[in-house]
């Protein structure tokens, strides 16, 4: 793709999402856990009167995230997914990068497993590999 992507670290890897999806990034969020809810739902956040469902993205992507990592930073997405406002936790925010098609490659064949379907492209940037996530696929599938 061409355009700006927002990148962040999660489970030791660098991920990116198309910046048009991001509404805001919140730090030190105070959320409410939902006992009995699905394991990939972390809880609910009150964002200026809107209830935002917060997801455990690392778990959805089957990443090994250290349990002791405090989940405090999250990206809130623009718009509604299956009728809900949605956000997900990240470990660390990286930068916003301009990408061009020549930086992108389709995901290699060996990562096209179940979680691979959530990856839209792989971006090579300054010797780093950014996994570009397909937000629509992820949050429409779960």
């Amino acid at each position: 793709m061409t355009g700006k992507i927002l990148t962040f670290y999660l489970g030791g890897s660098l991920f990116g999402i198309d910046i048009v999806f991001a509404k805001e990034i919140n730090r030190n969020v105070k959320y409410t856990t939902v006992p009995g809810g699905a394991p990939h739902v972390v809880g609910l956040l009150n964002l200026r009167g809107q209830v935002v469902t917060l997801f455990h993205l690392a778990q959805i992507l089957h990443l090994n995230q250290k349990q002791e990592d405090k989940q405090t930073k999250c990206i809130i997405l623009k718009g509604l997914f299956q009728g809900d406002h949605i956000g997900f936790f990240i470990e660390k925010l990286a930068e916003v990068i301009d990408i061009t098609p020549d930086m992108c490659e389709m995901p290699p064949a060996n990562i096209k497993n179940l979680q691979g379907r959530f990856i839209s492209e792989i971006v090579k940037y300054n010797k780093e590999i950014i996994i570009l996530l397909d937000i629509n696929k992820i949050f429409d599938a779960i």
Partner: protein
Amino acid sequence: MLKDEKLIQEFVVEAKEHVEKIESGLLSFEQKEYDENVINAIFRSAHNIKGTAGFFGFQKIVELSHAMESVLGKIRSRELALTFDIVDALLMANDELRELLDHITISEERDIASLVKRLQHIYISGKEAQLIEPLDAGDEIFIPEIPQKAVKKHKDDADNKMIIELGKKGHKIYKYVHALDSQQSDVERFSTNMSKSIQSIGTILNSYIRNKNSFGNMIIFLFSTVLEKELAIMAIGANAREIEELSISTQSAEIFQLLSETEEKSAYPKEERLLNTKQKALDFSEEKIKNDLVEERIKVDVALLNNLVNLSSEMVLARNQLLRLLESHVDGIPGIRAVLQKIDHTTTEMQEKIMRTRMQPISILFHSIPRLVRDLSKKLGKSLTLKMEGKEVEMDKSILEGLIDPFTHLIRNALDHGIEKPERRKALGKDPTAMIEIKARHEGGRVIIDIMDDGAGIDIEKVKQQALQEGLIGQDEAMDISDSKMAELVFSPGFSTVSQVSDISGRGVGLDVVRSNIEKFGGIVELHTLKGKGTTFRLLLPLTLAIIPSLILAVGKHNFALPQTHLQEIVRIVDGKETGRLQWIQERRVLQLRGKLVPIVHLADVIGLEKNFEATSPITRILIIKIARRTFGIIVDAIHGQEELLVKPMPNHLKEVKVYSGVTILGDGSIAMVLDVDGIASMGNLVFSEEGVESSQSEVVSLENQIQEMQYLLLFQCSGPEILGLHLSMIARVNEISPHQIEEVGNKQYYNSQGNIMQLIRLEQYLPVASKEQSGEKMYVITPKGNNLSLGLLVRAIKDTVQVDSLMVKEDIQGKGLLGSTIINEKIVLLVDLHEIVEMSVRNSIPN
């Protein structure tokens, strides 16, 4: 007709916008984008133009837009495929519409007959009329890609859903077949009239005309209503053998068949039905124009309104935080106090106003009642007058809509079972013309609607027998159940069917449905009946659907909200004190509550939380929940108090969790889950037998006493030294009187209070307190609130009003008329149970 220049100008501006919309919509079809939303939007635009134009009396515009609307309606319901020619005809009509609007003053002089005729032709023949424009052989159709089957399947699913929905609401489905003579004009008149009659009692599901033979047609209506067959027949003035009831559960196949009947000719303009089932049928010849269209209104997306509601409550929170933070600095910053105050007031007012945007006057509900009453009373041979008060009372739109069915039910119950025939009324010495009164009013943040009749009332004895027969209550239970409790049995599910109720001469048909419908949005139904005098149903409804008084409770660190609708009482058990009350049977906990065993679940178990045993306090708090006649208890760790909450729907990703019914934002800005008692009952594996545990109301300590955080008590003394306490919220006023103002009649004492004779009660006669001769200059009369009996409490001295937080009611000192005792400022205060006192005094004053 109105000819206000300014209003007409506004209409033209608005109508032109609609014309633009119609044009761009129609043109999008030229690009082969068939889109249901677009066709709906165009349809609405045409409808809007028609409605407003009719109000101003622009007949030509009405005629043309109605013709367009009719065709669009058929396209929308997929009875008509959208061809270039139809688009063309519509576009031409639209152009003409614009012309008419541009020259609004001379619009009546223009000739639109040919355009209207062309559209009518399309509408009637189902395709572009041959006469006016020959059809191309290769006439293109825009929606052939949708396979017929898929369309049908989609329709079936929708039908199925609708029928199930109707069944849940207590609707019954009827088929009405009427043979017609061949005269076409009669057919139209008949079908229009009939559809109006049916719509006054229910909803038309389908209608069509069948050719029977060369002599006449059959007109068939499929409709649903809450009324029973006999009443439905009466209400629409049909012949008994023309109506057939179709059971939703057993005859669904037949219903489907009837629903999918393709109309040879619709007996009733179908697009209207799709648009709004409650709307009267419109006809080419007849127009009904709503009067309130002229009011200055602006259409706003409901989603936007809800957004505003959210934001305003958020603003209130921010305001609270701001005020709290700045409180200590107010004196240091000159001028800030005024600013803060202004923000404070503006925010409050703004929130109130925003809340009001969802409100609608109750007249929407009232306007269909006179016709229902008129039709039914005529058919039943009863004469009565209908009185309605409080049309202007406003409440949430969605609640109003949900009230239509229960209302129809209650009114027709009153008419059928409550009110006697005129001859009978005469014989009983009553006015032969009966009276039904419907009164709506605001009271204490709620809307109260009374539906009163002066009919026969409910025969408690017969209800009792019926309940015994049906096994709803046991023989021994029947002995000590109070009359009002007994009357409430008519709300029990399955209490009565048609035949049983007509024996009882009371009511009861589907009253359980009425109750569950009302309770669904947090309302309460009360029943007051007096044999021979009449019956009153009182509906207590929340102002808005979204705001529900709830109890905030906690398990571990998690806060939850529990709507108070089903909360019966709160039981506290202190360890080691009443050990016998909470026991284990087969690893399940039960509570002994006034001699009955109540199943108990721990909220932590139900929602899958770890129980925190270390922090267990010596007090066990149990919320007693009552759903219909099933009672169970929920143990929670802590109760934080009461809040009026704005309940938001569950996020879709959490919908499968059955123990919650929604989400809410608490006063401190944090989110709490709203508990669903039904879900808890099923998650807690509670299987109820029909004989639920019935708790006796008289012993229930008023819920308010336990959970209101801040309460005011009025402390006073009667003749003795004991200090008595009464909730300030229960007191209307306190008057100072001198003893000579008290007059004795018989052995009772009266006081003339502003022209009203008030009976005085001396508490020492009812309470276990010392009684001494009074000798004082002054006495005080406490008038309780909501007191229709004109009673006052005569006391010697008013001590104080005190503010206490979380009142601890102790049960050490017990006695009739006492709620218990508490300690305030190191003195014992006896809490008076006002209800019981009033009851005792009434009992006392009845001879024998």
